């Protein structure tokens, strides 16, 4: 299940974005994009936007990304 945006798991998600293990190609591409974005701009605004983008991605694909969602959020 995708945690709500306010869940601390999202802060952990962004903090660990360089070491996440996932299987789906779309998740890999999306995470790689966010990884590059937060590496270039460490501002809080970019972190929040990245969490928002990731939340939207997982929420829209909850049925097809069950394994990756479980892998990341437990």
């Amino acid at each position: 299940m995708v945690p709500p945006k306010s869940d601390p798991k999202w802060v952990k998600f962004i903090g660990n974005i360089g070491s996440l293990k996932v299987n789906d190609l779309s998740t890999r591409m999306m995470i790689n994009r966010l990884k590059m974005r937060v590496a270039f701009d460490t501002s809080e605004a970019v972190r929040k936007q990245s969490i928002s983008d990731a939340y939207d991605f997982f929420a829209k694909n909850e049925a097809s990304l069950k394994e990756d969602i479980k892998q990341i959020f437990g």
Partner: protein
Amino acid sequence: MKSMMTVQEASELIRSGKKLFIAGDESQLAALPRGEWVGGTIPFFMGEAGGLFTQNQVQVTMLPEYVTACTVTLYGVEDLERIPADYKPNGFAYVVIPAFSEAHQKFAQDCSNWPGVFDRPLIGWIAGIDLKDLGKTLPRVFNGQSGEDSTTKAAVMHVDLPEDKYAKSNIINLFHQGSGDSITFSTAGFEVTECMVNGQKRNLAEYLEEQKIDQKLPLVADYVGAMINVSFQAVDAKNGKVSLYAPVFPGVEYKIAVPVGDYETEFRKELDAKSIHPVFACNCVLNYLYAKLEGKKTGHIVGPITFGEIAYMLLNQTLVYLTFETK
């Protein structure tokens, strides 16, 4: 259904209302009637009997009857960013872009930044031509619904699926990062002069010459476990320039690939391990040329052999495929 067919056979499928992806020579595609299809030029294919070159047949991918809707749109360079906004609610987007066009360049450099681009599978290929016609004619894409064609715009079929299904895109890339030097770039682009090798500033062309790198081996980046290739087009050692078939990006670490043994055998192993049955697949013309795939089978996989593969982004020397799964 066999994938390779005559224009007449493809025309019958179109007239019967089938939803189709079609690849072939311009002369063949231009002869097809209007209907529910999208196409692009290419004369290289993975056919049922193996790799082949033909300008007298087209290759057809027929979508299942349960596909609920499809809309074909041509996007100009300035409109490309709208592609994700037009995704169908439960579908995928199939894109064909003419090689050498500004749309090709723009897509490759910017698509990862488009809002929502990863929200639905975005899969497709770069249209091409017979290699001996390079510089004489241009690759072209076709909107079967409207009857339009273009050498500058991207053709996209937005497809929707019933609620109990979803589309999934994936890749088979036989190349992996080698254990050699770490190569990074400070700017994005298809043309490269400077790079950093293990943190030291170098001219890439000089480095490749000095290390005697086999230019058939791509640069490989690790995108969270997905191996993403960037292939060498030309190395101009005299002027210190390297041309690439896809852009490199800053903040990404590249390494020269480990050589692949026998492509056909290694590909078969990958297929057996994955047990996939794609709705659509495409492979790279560089794999066709370097691995001498003419007449060789890529397992049961059929599809166009292209000037670039697309799975959310432009890829090189990679097989891209699309499957439909049940929720």
